[in-house]
């Protein structure tokens, strides 16, 4: 019978806490950049001019169709040699996760914008608005509300994907857990604790997301799912 002993793990709780903080740092930074970039990509993709929509489409498809870990390795190991920049694990992580999540967010944005009926566009045009004004004043405000659940779902995915950065030695929660389990020879307790921490944080966010969805459903809004 294995004798469980959590004390070595708990003795290292500062490392775990710092790991969690770093995980949240990467997640939130990538989320902000990802959302901004996603909106840009979506608008480019929707543009009637091929010179804008094609490259955007290319980026979106490439980053949705290749595994995130391959992207991460490419940005961390290959890109520095290509353009001669120093790449820290944090920067590589944020760049990869921002673009990767942006590709998915772009599709959510696009779906949301497209789901607004043509009538809204036509009414705005009839009043004399141009494309940019219509988007800004009429379409996006309505679209964003519908897209919220899909965004929250994608954000949760992002939080889970950040564990990949442990493979390039960024000191996130998983990396910290690995270090501790090697130090203390207690992989079972350490990894179980790490898994539970991830579960609690992500599950809490998941529940919050469902509350928001329920609240939106009550007001009769339809939602976009991708």
């Amino acid at each position, binding site marked *: 019978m294995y004798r469980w002993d959590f004390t070595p793990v708990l003795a290292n709780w500062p490392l775990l806490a710092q790991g969690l903080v770093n995980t949240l740092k990467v997640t939130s930074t990538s989320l902000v950049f990802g959302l901004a970039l996603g909106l840009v990509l979506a608008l480019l993709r929707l543009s009637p001019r091929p010179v804008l929509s094609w490259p955007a489409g290319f980026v979106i498809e490439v980053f949705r169709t290749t*595994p*995130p870990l391959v992207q991460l390795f490419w940005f961390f190991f290959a890109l520095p040699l*290509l353009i001669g920049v120093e790449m820290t694990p944090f920067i590589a992580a944020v760049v990869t996760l921002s673009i990767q999540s942006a590709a998915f967010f772009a599709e959510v944005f696009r779906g949301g914008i497209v789901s607004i009926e043509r009538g809204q566009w036509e009414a705005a045009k009839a009043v004399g608005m141009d494309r940019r004004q219509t988007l800004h004043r009429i379409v996006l405000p309505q679209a964003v509300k519908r897209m919220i659940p899909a965004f929250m779902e994608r954000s949760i995915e992002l939080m889970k994907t950040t564990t990949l950065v442990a493979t390039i030695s960024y000191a996130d929660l998983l990396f910290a857990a690995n270090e501790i389990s090697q130090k203390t020879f207690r992989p079972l307790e350490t990894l179980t604790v790490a898994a539970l921490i991830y579960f609690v944080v992500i599950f809490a966010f998941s529940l919050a997301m469902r509350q928001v969805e329920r609240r939106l459903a009550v007001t009769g809004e339809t939602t976009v799912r991708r």
Partner: protein
Amino acid sequence: MNHRWDFASVLDNTDALLAGAAGTLRIFAICIVAGLALGLVIGLGRTSQRRWIHWPASAFVEFFRNTPVLVQILWFYFALPMLVPFSINPLGAAALGISLNSAAFTAEIVRGGIQSIDPGQWDGARAIGMGWGQAMRRIILPQALKRMTPALTNRAIEIFKMSTLASTVAYVELLQQGKLIASINYNPIEAYTAVAVIFFIVLWPMVQATYALERRLRRDE
């Protein structure tokens, strides 16, 4: 760009890449079958009214959907051997992690599909004397499966991409071979680009198929 691209060093190692491809396909096949089969069972369990079925199924789904796959893989590789008398090899750990994770997502797809079927279909089936099993098998699931196909194809694509996580426990698949080639030939640019391109070429048709399926489904509904 000052770098002189040299893919020859990658092409010299095609046998290594092929070994990686075989490994990727092997773990993909295992996880698709295990994930979808288990997901179907647990999804059905989620639709049950009986608490002793519903609760464990829901707990499974919530846990494996809300923890990162990589954590699960490492847990199966490093932690589980402490509890069981046998050893776990990289394929076993990675396959376990990816399969269970996929099963959780598949279960939700199955549950959603079944619950999206008009309750009148259950009425029609029961009114002619069908039991639960017969109604599921003959009436509900055939209709639900059609609706679930795009989401299930999406799951398959995700599983294919997740196979790269097995490289963290040194399982021989495409990314692991990419790492190997890069370290031997000092050509990470070409090596990782090649791996990315291979994945893109394989997955692109599958992704397009999913879009087509979704469009057809929306038209039919």
